[in-house]
């Protein structure tokens, strides 16, 4: 593998939450040990439901928050050990696009000013040069030069997301962290923005960390997929390996629960019971064991390690190191 642009080693973050006047504050492990390597020009998709810790992970990767434990390497250099000036430079190399384009743009700032602001803060460029760079980036994302002086309310959701992408890319970052970039958009506009992201990756050579819960979008965009559950990676590997034969029962359930736009498709639907357990009080052993259709005695007591099975990493006692997906008991019962 080529030198990764970004490498995470055992990243973890926990928060203390006050539970009222008399009780002791509780600790929530939002992310509990995530490791990955991101190759240049590639896309890593992080999949998970709300509460799985994917947004916390995104905040740590973009250095909005310092990791509680573990380390983050950018171009092979440990970010935590870098001096302030270097860290400042690194911040420009990892940029973020947020989920909601209605909330992430300042309504009182023209979009030209919004796109130029990262340059103003991070570079000594003169105003004319900043403007030229902003206009160039606007053209790349499909905005016209006359849009430069307009305000966010004059744009549709899809256009706003283009503005947010232009703002993130104007510092020419090597890595773009996209937190659910298309989930607020309509189908026809979503396709436009996804195409734009594909073109920008080919043109600028950025690597993407693509946080999403939409498996259709993930399958289209990703080179590698990491599935998270309650702050941990449960399955992580190349896209085709995971989509053709998921090994972790949670990945399989997630795939079967995603509605498919094909009424003729025959599916073995696995409907999980219950909801994501409270992160205050995670179950012992495997975090997925209360909802897992394959649960065994061992799952309730021992945490399964993330180990290589059939060409991907998977954390499950029941997953087998054989080709093909893990068989699910419940389907056999239903058939």
């Amino acid at each position, binding site marked *: 593998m080529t030198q990764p642009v970004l490498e995470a080693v055992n990243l973890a973050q926990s928060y203390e939450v006050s539970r009222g006047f008399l009780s002791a504050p509780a600790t929530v492990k939002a992310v509990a040990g995530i490791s990955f390597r991101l190759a240049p020009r590639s896309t890593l998709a992080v999949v998970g439901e*709300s509460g799985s810790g994917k947004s916390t992970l995104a905040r740590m990767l973009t250095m909005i928050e310092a990791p509680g434990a573990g380390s983050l390497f950018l171009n092979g250099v440990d970010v935590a050990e870098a001096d302030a000036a270097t860290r400042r430079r690194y911040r420009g190399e990892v940029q973020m696009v947020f989920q909601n384009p209605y909330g992430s743009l300042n309504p009182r700032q023209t979009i030209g000013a919004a796109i130029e602001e990262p340059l103003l803060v991070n570079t000594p460029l003169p105003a004319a040069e900043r403007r030229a760079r902003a206009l160039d980036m606007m053209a790349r994302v499909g905005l016209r030069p006359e849009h430069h002086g307009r305000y966010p309310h004059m744009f549709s959701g899809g256009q706003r997301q283009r503005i947010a992408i232009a703002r993130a890319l104007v510092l020419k970052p090597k890595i773009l962290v996209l937190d659910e970039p298309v989930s607020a958009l*309509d189908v*026809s506009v979503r396709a*436009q923005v*996804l195409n734009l992201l*594909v073109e920008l990756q080919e043109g600028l050579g950025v690597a993407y960390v693509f946080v999403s819960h939409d498996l*259709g979008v993930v399958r289209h965009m990703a080179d590698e997929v990491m599935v998270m559950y309650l702050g941990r990676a449960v399955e992580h590997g190349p896209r085709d390996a995971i989509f053709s034969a998921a090994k972790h029962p949670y990945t399989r359930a997630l795939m079967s629960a995603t509605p498919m*736009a*094909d009424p003729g498709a025959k599916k073995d639907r696995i409907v999980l019971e219950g*909801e994501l357990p409270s992160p205050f009080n995670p179950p012992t052993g495997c975090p997925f064991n209360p909802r897992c259709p394959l649960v065994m005695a061992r799952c309730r007591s021992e945490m399964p390690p993330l180990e290589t099975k059939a060409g991907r990493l998977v954390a499950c006692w029941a997953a087998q190191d054989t080709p093909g997906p893990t068989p699910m008991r419940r389907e056999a019962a239903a058939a």
Partner: protein
Amino acid sequence: MTLLSIRNLTVSFATSRGPFRAVDGVDLDVAAGELVAIVGESGSGKSVAMLAVMGLLPWTATVTADRLMFDGKDLAAMTPRERRRIIGRDLAMIFQEPMSSLNPCFTVGFQIGEALKTHLGLGRAARRDRAIALLNEVGIPEPERRLRAFPHQLSGGMSQRVMIAMALACRPKLIIADEPTTALDVTIQAQILDLLVRLQRENGVGLVLITHDMGVVAETSQRVCVHYAGQQVEMQPTEGLFRDPHHPYTAALLAALPERASGRLLPSIPGVVPGLADRPKGCLFSPRCRFATERCRTVPPPRAGAELGLALCHTPLVQGVPQRAPAAA
């Protein structure tokens, strides 16, 4: 038996820039035990059309229809008092965001009980028993304890179950569900959809499902209406719609789904839905349609026959090929 029958429903809003037609000539029939989906992007008027049926639009809206019948009664000719007697009892609605649709000041039990008290006149003990039975039915564990819970103590999936329990409270004949699973996670969405489909099959309730998710449509509904910019552009049985869409908008919408795409780039639809200011003269989809001709841009399209999915188009598609040679421009 047809429960809901709508012909030529039009809703316009008085805005400072003149009237805006949010819903433009919508027809819909829903029979008992049928699941009809209405799909469309934001601004397509799918929610407004159903809010008009419920009578929940603000005074700025003007609703006209050639026919607006529910269960043999004319909703349009009713007094508000008569209408209120039906709504919430025979005709119920499940709203989009469960977190903000429930009243944060009252317990779940109280909110479910309200409909039972108003419509069925049940006493306190009977209301409590019925509320527990309803919460059981929608799959909420420990219903006795949950009755005393406030909405903020429930997760999104649980709140949506409470919304469904409220809609079911008086055994309605027709339920309108407006994006019931949009705010929920995929595994919870699967649970809620299964619940709705089970209730519709077991109780013979008619269900109108408003959604923008083609996957949800494919997996649940029997018939689909596609809305675009307030107009109903196509209506077909679900299988036919996904196999052979007749309106170019439906075809483009399906082609733009990442899960149906084969290449690295998706066949996207250029442009955006027209707003109040830039409404085209002819077909509303013509500026974004790749089959558009001069006639499409100037003459509003006619409605095709049922064999062509009632497509609102000059040149409906069959297997992706436009029919009827377009008139020479």
